[in-house]
């Protein structure tokens, strides 16, 4: 466990060092950490605070403000489903409910087997091909029941 923490600290320090020189470095650092670890580990916060000469509360406040920063690791797949108006106009809400049912989890939850995390997103800019979703960074338009079943099969594989 101690080894793990030490390893985390080294990796976090590397990311901070690489970004420290930019103006307003906190968001780029947090993005870098999330990219590295898949989430922002609590252990990383005091290190960032120390290196940027901020209080821990300030760093904590920034991390908790933004929807993107995850406090726990996500599932192997991350499925973001747009819940905004354009997607609602094309039956997005019924599809979202169907997805929850098929995956057996709600939004903001990760499946028990760690296969997938289901997240809401408010607009992917794919509003002329609604309903839309993003699976592991890949964009999907004109979602329908059949496509949803494919997605569920894909993330369970």
């Amino acid at each position, binding site marked *: 466990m101690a080894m793990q923490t030490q390893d985390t600290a080294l990796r976090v320090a590397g990311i901070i060092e690489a970004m420290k020189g930019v103006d307003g470095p906190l968001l780029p650092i947090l993005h870098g950490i999330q990219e590295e670890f898949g989430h922002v580990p609590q252990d990383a916060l005091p290190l960032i605070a120390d290196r940027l000469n901020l209080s821990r509360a300030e760093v904590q406040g920034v991390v908790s403000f*933004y929807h993107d920063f995850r406090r726990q690791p996500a599932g192997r797949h991350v499925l973001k489903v747009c819940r905004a108006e*354009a997607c609602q*106009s094309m039956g997005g809400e019924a599809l979202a409910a169907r997805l929850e049912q098929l995956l057996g989890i709600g939004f903001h939850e990760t499946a028990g087997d760690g296969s997938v995390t289901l997240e809401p*997103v*408010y607009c992917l*800019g794919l*509003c002329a091909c609604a309903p839309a979703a993003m699976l592991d960074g890949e*964009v999907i338009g004109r979602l329908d029941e059949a496509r949803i079943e494919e997605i569920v099969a894909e993330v369970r594989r």
Partner: protein
Amino acid sequence: MTPVIYIPGDSGAVALGADKVAAAIEAELKARGTQARIVRNGSRGAYFLEPMVEVRTEKGRFAYGPVKPADVRSLFDNGFLTGNQHRLWLGAPDKIPFLAGQTRLTFARCGVTDPLSLEDYKAHGGLRGLERAVSMPPAYIVERVTESGLRGRGGAGFPTGIKWKTVLEAAGDQKYIVCNADEGDSGTFADRMIMEGDPFVLIEGMAIAGVATGATRGFIYIRSEYPHAIDKMNRAIVVARRAGMLGPAVLGSPNAFDMEVRVGAGAYVCGEETSLLNSLEGKRGVVRAKPPLPALQGLFGKPTVVNNVISLASVPIILDRGAAFYKDFGLGRSRGTIPIQIAGNVKRGGLYEAAFGMTLGEIVDEIGGGTRSGRPVKAVQVGGPLGAYFPRALFDTPFDYEAFAAKDGLIGHAGIVVFDDTADMMKMARFAFEFCAVESCGKCTPCRIGAVRGAETIDRLAAGAEPGESLALVSDLCNTMKFGSLCALGGFTPYPVMSAINHFPDDFRPQAVAEAAE
């Protein structure tokens, strides 16, 4: 001549399968031993035809769409590399009615050129605005922009030239150009399309803004939901820097200007300019009170131009063709063109750039072709989640900042979301409150608490509890939010809520609720 095949790399086209079509075309070329050059262009914006593949032949350019991977073999069998007929043949792309009716100024190159080829950009009229700007005194550039009548395309509609003038005249050892690419409004994708399809026009616009105001550094704040746009902008900046379009001597002039991309982190409120500045500084994206204006004390306390992507991307053509040319389009105080984004439940969804002044009905019925579901149009939300819902009775409203304001609405970033008659407007009103509650930065009490109370009150209304009192409470809350919030999130959430209540009262009647519950 080797044929050139254009397959959009635009994320909307990709969401509809463009990458799979590209792979199928590559495989087919290989299997047949045929030579052709593939360009991943942007989208022309006719999403109902995407993935739309184009071929440039000796006879000109021809479009085919919507193409599925399974269509690729038959396209080749029918000689699509020479522009031959096929059941997916659409003819010359600029003759497609949806595209032929547009006035493409800002989006002139989007979907036409290779987004990362500066040669292609120049061959299609790019860079002429910046070339002119570097030979002009800064005040003269600012005057041209003011004269053009260009107003902030992000939604606020503030005259761009006036903002630039303030920054030009402000004292400061460092000034900044900040491009707001946090396009979070549902129903809008114009910023995304231009960043993915013609990134150089935004870079050129920002460089002109820098030269005009004395700012030497620029930031493009792009939302994290747009990974394709982030990638394209980053790569285009590298190309522009290498070509001397950015750097210590912009196009060989004494002006220095460089820029970088910053990525948001999923907070809608960061589309508000002062929240965005806080976010860029590495803080919580909380709204700042104005004054001080960002033009005087913006990023890191320095004079800062904060402009939307489309505002900045419209500047090069103004400098190139002149203020009078741009101003000639439009009506009243809404000059130039506006890229209208037609979205939601609509037959022909996409981006339609036109001079201000078309009526809402023309846009929805004639251009958009009515609903995709084939059912009657019930409502259209104009201007994103903070925009009003318009009923058919207001379809004669011309697309113009003031005309929409006069009907208790706003054009915002010019996104239009169409709903058919299955839409429940009470649900949509509740969603407006819920969205505001989720995204509120928490600074203003009316927004932070009002949005939560609003959603709760609509739930009570839906349950049939004290309908008269509940509705009165909702309008009272809206009034408080409208006048008691610093920014548009709390201040404009009343637009969708009150327009739903006022224009669709049947959806809020207790008996309707009771019937729906049965």
